[in-house]
């Protein structure tokens, strides 16, 4: 791994120590009640090395990622601040990065973001002033050179651990490891992948990643999550951009009686964690359990990832 000044990120410390890392996602509330955030965070903080504060994922409006980070850092939790390029231009984003670091945020996840058309307000103006790689490079430049894009100086340290997303499950397959190389060059130190349901595809991706030596330059956390029901799986598969669920898994959930589908979804998730954990170059898992946070504890336990500390 490249030698960087310590970001004081707990997530970075865990990854550097070689322990299998766990991050998870906090479902952003549709409320102005801080307790909604605290309650969800309390469940996750017990075993997570980082809690993702998502930035209007799926282009649906929720409490903003910046404010969730503010609430999390107040109580000493470790947020992963997601910034998408969809809603803000370069001026807003650079300011937010400084503000987040000032609040004690140490992990940044730079993503392009789903298009506005994926959400419930498709008439909104898509910004995309940056793409994810330009955002990464800008954050890297702000941290390492201590300048804004304009060249104007930043007058303090900016300790940040920089992350990016990767989706090994969509076309062009051969391009995906090369894109990873580009993201690493642009500043990515850790990766959280899209939901992995196709372990074989992921294995092939990791083979290419290892051939290129990229697994030694970046920490890869595999995205996983429980399917709640056949209906939910079908929705994710057809309506959420970038999620690929193989037919075998769809069939397996479909064949299960309705009342046991959630349990089956959890079982599949546990199996996938156990499989990807064995793949060389995998540094951890990123568990996304949309509206099923209570399940994350069980998943971690059943996948044999406890005790954590």
């Amino acid at each position, binding site marked *: 791994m490249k030698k960087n000044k310590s970001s004081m990120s707990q997530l970075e410390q865990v990854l550097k120590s070689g322990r299998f890392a766990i991050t998870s996602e906090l479902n952003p509330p549709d409320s102005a009640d801080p307790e909604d955030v605290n309650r969800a965070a309390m469940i996750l903080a017990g075993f997570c090395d980082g809690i993702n504060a998502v930035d209007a994922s799926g282009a649906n409006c929720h409490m903003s990622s910046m404010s969730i980070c503010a609430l999390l850092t107040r109580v000493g939790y470790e947020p992963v601040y997601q910034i998408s390029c969809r809603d803000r231009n370069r001026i807003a984003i650079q300011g937010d990065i400084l503000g987040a670091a000032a609040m004690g945020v140490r992990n940044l996840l730079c993503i392009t973001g789903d298009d506005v058309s994926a959400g419930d307000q498709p008439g909104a103006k898509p910004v995309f002033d940056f*793409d994810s790689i330009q955002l990464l490079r800008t954050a890297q430049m702000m941290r390492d050179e201590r*300048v804004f894009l304009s060249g104007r100086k930043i007058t303090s340290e900016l300790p940040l651990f920089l992350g990016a997303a*990767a989706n090994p499950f969509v076309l*062009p397959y051969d391009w995906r490891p*090369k894109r990873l190389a580009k993201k690493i060059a642009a500043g990515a130190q850790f990766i959280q992948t899209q939901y992995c349901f196709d372990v074989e595809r992921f294995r092939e991706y990791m083979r*290419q990643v290892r051939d290129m030596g990229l697994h030694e330059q970046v920490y890869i956390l595999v995205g996983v999550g429980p399917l709640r029901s056949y209906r939910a799986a079908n929705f994710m598969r057809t309506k959420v951009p970038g999620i690929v669920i193989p037919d075998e898994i769809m069939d397996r959930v479909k064949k299960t009686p309705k009342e046991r589908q959630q349990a089956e979804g959890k079982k599949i998730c546990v199996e996938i964690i156990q499989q990807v954990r064995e793949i060389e170059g995998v540094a951890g898992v990123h568990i996304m359990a949309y509206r099923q946070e209570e399940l994350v504890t069980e998943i971690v336990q059943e996948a044999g990832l406890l005790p954590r500390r």
Partner: protein
Amino acid sequence: MVLEWIYDLTYALLKPFKKFLKPNSFAEKAMISIEKVGKGVVFDCQMCGQCILHSTGMVCSMNCPKNLRNGPCGGVRLNGHCEVKPEQTCVWVKIYEGSLASPKYGSEIMWIQPPVDRTLQDSSSWVNLLHGIDQKMKTVWQTQDEKDALEPIFRGSNEKE
């Protein structure tokens, strides 16, 4: 690829006329019309004024609905179509194929392209290129060393397969 050859030829033809092709000149206005029509018909050019066509497999990346200049997003559909416009093939799927078919500049797809300078919209990309106006960032965005290190990755892993 023929388009690479045309790019080189155009550059060679225009270079001697650099001092006539000044920004905001009548000559630039003429160039803008030529580019709008020529590149418009062939590439569906969006007149960003900072053309990187030869680095993107001779496919215009500004036609990506998210204006991505460094690669495809994670929303590409299973049939290779766009997340935002399901009826069209992902621009970056075409760019990747175009780059593989471009022996001379194809590996420039690995360059880290800087953010778009929106002030150059609707100006002449050739004039901007000749006068270095399209690269006037005040910070070092990407070093030549980094470009040189990234480029071989593009073809490297393909040969293994």
